[in-house]
């Protein structure tokens, strides 16, 4: 379904001495994701999670490496690949001048949906997350939880086969977080592949079939939460995560 091969991203960077240099945000990671899987990318702040997701969703070009979706290369077939993807960014990026309904409509048009299909689908999705009443309100007026739910619904309008969720529950209360988890699980049951980044370990443990642990741009391990616990002989994924990322920091320091 998804094949990531030796993905590298370097950004221009000014060093301590003021000289222009390069900083490696993602350092040669490779992995694959199966259809219908909920795949989690875990890592501390600055691990390279968002950069990885931005490369995978073609918002940033990789410095090197290859990304394939159902055999289609992002480099060779960008438009066809984009049609397969639904993206829920970490930050709220609605068009502030449009209403809830207009934001949804804009997205549907950008994915080439016809007028009738757009209308039906938008009504269905807003109804699903109980946002039908605010369809004509400006997006600025929505609460944080409403905005998050709307972001996910917007990403689903065009029936994507792969859904990217970048820190989907950040700064949300436990009830809203649980509703989003339920939504993600039901999508995966329906055959949608979910690629999730989070730094909430319990979220990854509750949702993900497999988890990749990323630190300083490198992939430290990739397995099911149960196997990761078993391999390290630790009782929780959180401890596995802490041990791995601390080891990585110590190795770098030496």
């Amino acid at each position, binding site marked *: 379904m998804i094949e990531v091969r030796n993905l590298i991203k370097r950004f221009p960077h000014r060093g301590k001495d003021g000289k222009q240099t390069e900083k490696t945000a993602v350092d040669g990671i490779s992995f694959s994701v199966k259809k219908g899987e909920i795949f989690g990318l875990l890592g501390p702040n600055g691990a390279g999670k968002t950069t990885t997701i931005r490369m995978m*969703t*073609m*918002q*940033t*070009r990789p410095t090197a490496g290859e990304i394939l979706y159902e055999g289609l290369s992002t480099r060779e077939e*960008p*438009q*066809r690949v*984009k*049609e397969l*993807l639904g*993206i829920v*960014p970490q*930050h709220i*990026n*609605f*068009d*502030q*001048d*449009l209403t809830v309904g*207009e934001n949804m409509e*804009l*997205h549907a*048009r*950008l*994915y*080439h949906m016809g007028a009738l299909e757009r209308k039906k689908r938008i009504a269905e999705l807003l109804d699903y997350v109980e946002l039908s009443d605010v369809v004509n309100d400006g997006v600025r007026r929505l609460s944080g939880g409403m905005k998050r739910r709307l972001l996910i619904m917007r990403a689903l309008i065009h029936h994507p086969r792969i859904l990217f969720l970048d820190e989907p529950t950040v700064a949300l209360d436990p009830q809203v977080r649980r509703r989003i988890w339920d939504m993600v699980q039901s999508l995966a049951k329906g055959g949608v592949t979910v690629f999730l980044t989070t730094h909430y370990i319990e979220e990854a443990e509750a949702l993900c079939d497999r988890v990749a642990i990323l630190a300083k741009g490198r992939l430290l391990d990739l397995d099911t939460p149960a196997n990761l616990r078993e391999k390290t002989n630790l009782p929780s994924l959180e401890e596995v995560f802490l041990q791995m990322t601390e080891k990585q920091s110590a190795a770098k320091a030496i």
Partner: protein
Amino acid sequence: MQQKLFDIGTVFWRDWVVLKRRLAKFLVSRMVAPLLYLVAFGWGLGRSISVDGGSYLDFIVPGILALNSMNISFNSITPVHAERVYHKSLEEYVSAPIWPDAFVIGKLLAALLRALLSSAIICALAFAFGARLTLSPLFLLVLALNCIIFAEIGFVAAMKINTFEEMGQVNTYILLPMSFLCGTFFHTAALPSLVRLIIDALPLTHTSYLLRALGSGQEASALSLFVLFFYCLVLYAFCVRFFRRLSD
């Protein structure tokens, strides 16, 4: 081709929805500056001035059209800067399967519409003030080219500049000097030859020349038309390049 047109339509639709909601406010606010220009320079100062044997009002209306269409088209596209830098809503377009040029064309067309609406108000006010102006298809084409050129400059600025403050500096250092020096309020012949050399290389000067000539029923300068087309095409190439590079 059909899909490309659909994509352009989508980008234009977004701006049309926003404009439609604020249309009355937009139209009223666009009357203020030209009305002041016409009162001050047409009735006030203009009564005692004659240019080329005609009234100063007739001389100044093409200049007001040129500078106003420049300002409106530039300012219509600058919200793209906030969409890119602050709201991040441009990511929606970058990650969507649309033809990348459609975003540029859609935004330019939306800016063109705003600037032409504003120009129509100026023409109506100018006629009400008694100005004589010949409108022709070529006159409208020159006006449209001017709008597109400055919308393109606004687009390039929105893609390359990272702060609101610097966006404001484009107005201060580029648009404001052009507003006064590019043959809008007086003949560029009055300027020193070195300054004139620079002024003659700027697009607004050629728009002023062309609108004034065509508005008074004279022939258009082929060189000025060429300069406007040149700016339009070169700047378009920059717009597309910078939009595509958003994902670098």
